[in-house]
């Protein structure tokens, strides 16, 4: 026990054995310089520099901490580095996706006539001309946009009443009956159906009932409904459940009938959540490709009748333009159209998501004085 008490203390005992505040910045600067030096030896590229610097930074900070602060603090620093690293690593591909779509999609989207023309009569010959002679790019996504909107609207018309009424049954009438429990269970099962299987189901059902090879917009809408109904049921159920029982009791105590209580008190109270849930469900199915692929076929022309003939949609348009370019020898015009369509599709989905937020805020019960 040698006494180490020193009469003059420059730093508080509580901050003893800690890294200085600027430590991370110092380590970062050193790591960046070292990283650049290492990369200069084996050929410089920005991506490699970022990765090497990040590893050096983590190793340096954790090592320094281990020496000065001890194992527990060092472990904490290591965990922080890993968590932040995971976050940055996750952002990389996700922003890459959005960046790729923006860069590749904008030229297609800004092309005159892209939103207002279809692919009717656009053949490989035109695309070859575009590439070889600089002729304007022909063809657009009007038919696919119409198809997507019509199919989605029809799916919504089918799903919302069924889903909402089921949710009302489960919350207001179910009372833990065997039937209610069965429905809850099978709605769970439905949420797990892979989208392509939903498409196969709709196709199989229509093949069996209408005739083999029946492919129309309506079949696609049924397939999307199979995917959409469980989402609507789930979200509406959650929203109805959080309506306070006191409100129902207040209405009953006034001598109001149950169905009127539900329609006039419960639903208006929950409407913001229900509406935003439905909007998110639409956002989910509007980008589904696989079920439409097996139910509506492909079309290059405008078809606004969902009950007859093949129908195009944005996702299948993207898929076919990439996989089977209109002109196999010059796939660039096709890929430009595909990216344009992808951008439009993403914008649609984002708008629906934002819309869901706005709806939730707009319809929310007013509490202001």
């Amino acid at each position, binding site marked *: 026990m040698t006494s180490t008490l020193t009469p003059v203390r420059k730093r508080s005992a509580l901050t003893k054995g800690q890294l200085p505040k600027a430590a991370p910045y110092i380590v970062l600067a050193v790591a960046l310089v070292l990283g650049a030096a290492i990369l200069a030896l084996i050929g410089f590229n920005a991506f490699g520099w970022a990765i090497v610097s990040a590893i050096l930074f983590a190793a340096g900070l954790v090592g320094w901490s281990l020496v000065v602060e001890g194992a527990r603090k060092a472990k904490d620093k290591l965990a922080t580095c890993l968590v932040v690293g995971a976050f940055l690593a996750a952002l990389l591909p996700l922003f890459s996706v959005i960046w790729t779509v923006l860069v590749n999609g904008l030229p297609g989207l800004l092309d005159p006539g892209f939103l207002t023309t279809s692919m009717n009569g656009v053949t490989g010959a035109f695309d070859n001309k575009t590439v070889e002679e600089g002729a304007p790019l022909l063809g657009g996504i009007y038919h696919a946009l119409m198809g997507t909107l019509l199919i989605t609207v029809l799916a919504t018309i089918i799903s919302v009443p069924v889903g909402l009424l089921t949710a009302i049954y489960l919350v207001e009438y179910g009372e833990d009956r065997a039937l209610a429990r069965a429905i809850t269970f099978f709605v769970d099962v439905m949420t797990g159906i892979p989208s392509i299987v939903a498409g196969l189901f709709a196709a199989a059902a229509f093949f069996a009932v209408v005739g083999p090879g029946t492919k129309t917009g309506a079949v696609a809408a049924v397939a999307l409904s199979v995917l959409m109904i469980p989402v609507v049921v789930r979200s509406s159920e959650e929203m109805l459940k959080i309506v306070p029982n006191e409100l129902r009791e207040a209405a009953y105590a*006034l*001598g*109001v009938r149950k169905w009127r209580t539900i329609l006039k*008190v419960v639903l208006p109270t929950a409407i913001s959540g229900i509406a935003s849930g439905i909007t998110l469900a639409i956002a989910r199915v509007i980008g589904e490709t696989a079920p439409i692929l097996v139910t509506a076929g492909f079309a290059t022309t405008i078809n606004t009748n969902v009950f007859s003939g093949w129908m195009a949609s944005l996702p299948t348009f993207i898929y076919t333009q990439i996989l089977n370019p209109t002109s196999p020898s010059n796939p660039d015009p096709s890929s430009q159209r595909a990216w344009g369509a992808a951008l439009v599709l993403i914008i649609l989905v984002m708008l629906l998501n934002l819309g869901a937020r706005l709806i939730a805020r707009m319809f929310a019960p007013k509490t202001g004085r």
Partner: protein
Amino acid sequence: MSKRIDVKDLNVYYSKFLAVEDVNINIEAKSVTAFIGPSGCGKSTFLRTLNRMHEVIPGARVEGEVLLDGDNLYGPGVDPVTVRSQIGMVFQRPNPFPTMSIRDNVLAGVKLNNTKISKGEADVLVERSLQGANLWNEVKDRLGKPGSGLSGGQQQRLCIARAIAVEPQVILMDEPCSALDPISTLAIEDLINELKDQYTVVIVTHNMQQAARVSDKTAFFNIAGTGKPGKLIEFGDTPTIFSNPTEKATEDYVSGRFG
């Protein structure tokens, strides 16, 4: 515009569990009757059976008769909805409809049932009901604002206005002041005193002073132990119950020796 209630041999069950046993009580028209007793003794449960609100709780059922001026609430063919439009209820926590304005909240009982009512009639009804609930002067300038923007005490009076707007025979109140501050409580107690000129009022309360202040008659409920059913121990004029009860348990309770 008020009726008496007579309860004969009433048992209340939650599924198989007997919650309240063998209640017999006669509640006079145009009077205030208070139910007091320790927590869990079944007084709120019993109150709910007086307008069949207990049916909202899954598994709850009753045996026996509740007569509203001689008509059995539990007779064959009686619609609980009709019962509730004649016997209104005010709850423990104020519960105005959050999606409706103050005015629409008052009219809720009328409008929700889709009864046609002209704007003039509605205006008269809103004013009369809010006057009746001593709330008119505080809210007359903001009838279009949401009811959830009012203070707790104002919300509770709004709920009372909403209950009297459907012109019931009886008003049941389930601890209407337990969520309110003392000043709001006083306002509600004053209101109860005025209400008994027109309505039969039954109030459940935890607060014995409140029971003593507002009621003409008091019923004391008690429970022998957990798992045992609640029972009506004693029922009589309020002054008698508080100063000279017949039962030992009642005396212990009102003198604060237990509960």
